[in-house]
């Protein structure tokens, strides 16, 4: 069991290393990459924005009920922005993408493998790994930070609308308070760490889909494993990345 798990980790690592290496060597599949970027970014946009907005509203409602007991409702925008920019935005975006894109990639590649489409691509002397895997890895790595920014923005907007309906707080004052205690270290490193999430989601999903060889059952397994494993790996990676951020920006750890 342990041996099997370690073996799987080794294979995934090898798969990821190959993807990193092939990303820098021609030929570059620009057209397919563009299509993947659109598929990952534009396709997930509404999901991310809607989820962020709802989370912003819910978080403000919960925070208000707690802070009102201490007479610190003025700090709601500050808490909201700190929570979203530091952790909720990046992590939720990663998990959402693991669910939507991870499942999609795993199922699609597994199906292509089952229906021998990948073999067909190979017979046309096209590097199927570069075409199918590298483009998806790049698309996920690039698009995760972009979607995270939208998640943060919609979360702040949702928080404002929720707060405005209760306390009639102005947008200017909300924005001022939201960014009052925010440092660049609360914004840039957490946003950029989602690129790692995107890379992990793409590698794990592609691995399960690209390497399966069990027909329709393989499609099911690939889809499920892609979502489960990539979600778990994102959370675990987040722990390490947060510690790395604290190491690089020690003031944030105070």
């Amino acid at each position, binding site marked *: 069991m342990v041996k099997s798990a370690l073996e799987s980790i080794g294979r995934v690592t090898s798969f990821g290393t190959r993807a990193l290496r092939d990303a820098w060597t021609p030929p570059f599949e620009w057209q397919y990459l563009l299509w993947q970027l*659109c598929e990952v970014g534009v396709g997930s*946009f509404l999901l991310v924005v809607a989820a962020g907005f709802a989370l912003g509203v819910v978080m403000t409602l919960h925070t208000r009920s707690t802070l009102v007991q201490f007479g610190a409702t003025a700090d709601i925008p500050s808490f909201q922005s700190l929570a979203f920019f530091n952790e909720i935005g990046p992590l939720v975006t990663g998990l959402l993408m693991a669910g939507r894109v991870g499942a999609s990639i795993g199922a699609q590649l597994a199906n292509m493998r089952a229906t021998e489409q990948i073999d067909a691509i190979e017979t046309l002397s096209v590097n199927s790994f570069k075409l199918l895997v590298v483009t998806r890895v790049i698309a996920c790595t690039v698009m995760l930070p*972009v979607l995270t*920014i939208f998640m943060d*923005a919609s979360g702040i907007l949702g928080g404002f609308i929720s707060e405005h309906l209760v306390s009639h707080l102005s947008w200017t004052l909300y924005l001022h308070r939201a960014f009052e*205690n*925010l*440092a*660049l270290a609360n914004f840039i490193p957490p946003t950029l760490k989602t690129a790692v999430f995107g890379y992990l989601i793409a590698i794990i999903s592609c691995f399960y889909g690209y390497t399966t060889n069990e027909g329709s059952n393989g499609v099911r397994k690939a889809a499920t494993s892609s979502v489960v494993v990539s979600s778990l790996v994102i959370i675990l990676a987040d722990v390490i990345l947060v510690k790395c951020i604290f190491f690089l920006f020690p003031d944030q750890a105070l």
Partner: protein
Amino acid sequence: MKNQNLLLGILTTGALALFAAGLFLIGNQHKAFTHHVVFYTNFQNVEGLAKGAQVTVDGMIVGEVESIQVPSGPGQKFRLKMNVDDRLHGLIRGDSLVTVETEGLVGDKFLVIHDGSEHASEAPAGSTLQSQEQLEMSKLLEQAQGIMKQTSTAIDEVQGNLNDLRAHLDVTLDTATSTIRNVNGVVNNVNGVVTDVRSGKGTVGMLLEDKATAADVRQSVANVRQTTATLNGSSTRIDSLLAEVQSRQLLGKMDDTLSNTKSATQNLNQISQQVNTTLKSAFGEDQYGEDAGTNLEQSLTNINQATGNMADDTEALKHNFLFKGFFKHRGYDDLDDLPVEQYRAGEIFRNVPESRQWIPASSLFSTNADGSEVLTTQGRHSIDAAIGQFKEIYGQPLIIEGYDPSDSESVELIRSRRRAVLVQTYLQLHYHLLPKNTAIVALGSTPPTNAGKSTFDGVSLVSIGERNK
């Protein structure tokens, strides 16, 4: 495919715009895009203050703590570097204090730069501001304990004083009892003396019993009665005088005056004490041990030296080739002291300007019994008439030449100068001419050769400003 590109472009542009907006919003909060001035301050205890903590002036957030330098050893202080918005620089003065404050009960720590005083100069950028440590609760309790101890000591002292007072009262009561006893003894003695007098003993007894003495006494009484009558008359007049005084409320006024005088005296006393204190502090020794008199003397010596040097300098300047032409053209160097021979050799004297006014002595002066000359009313009119001939007399030099033909040269010199001085004094007083603009010169009896006169007896007025025009 075209549609995909468009959507992707919108997504990327939107994300970049939001990213940039986030950067600017955060940057603005941290004043990253404003001009900063750096100040430093030192704290023994930073109270949990962290790098990036806010810095406020008058409640406005003006910057943040950029760095906290940790002390290298015990007894040294943390050194805080603050970035402050340049626009608020004017509020931060040399005597501004920096304190660590807490936002609410559980809020963040932040720095407050308190306003300095108006008379203090603006704190220069990069300077170290004074800090004031936050008072800790333990120290407050310590102070309260000290106050309690002092109070207890004071109460003990008061109790001791009360005990002393009681002891003094006991002694006083004893003394009073003893005194009353002595008074009783004295009364008994007086009683014995009166009994003796009644029985004709002693001088008083003789006065009461002897007839001749009684006649003398009677005569004395008559004299006394007469004197009393006289006194009675006097007292009646005094009564009427007092009544008059009372009717005019003079006593009340006198009383008020006395009260006012007393109050004024007290005030004067206070003022004199204050003046005395002020004088003591003013004339006391300074930090170098020198008293005010010595300092003043030294200052006056310095001023004398400086003015002497300045006089030398200006004299040197007059002879400088750059300025020499001006003085030569003007015809004189200094109105205060016109040397006679130099004046005679000068352009003003030799050329006899048209603006010169001759006034003979007969229309100016009269001679006193002691031989001295004084300006007459007619003389003043003559001067007024001569002044009227000038177009302008203010702001330009006026030279008063005195002439007096006498037997000896020295007398000529003295009398001609005296005449010039009399006219100069009148001009300065009557026309308010500035002393610096009037000059006198005693020329004896000899006027300029081309004036058409071999000698002259009187005064000549020369307006240099008119000559220059």
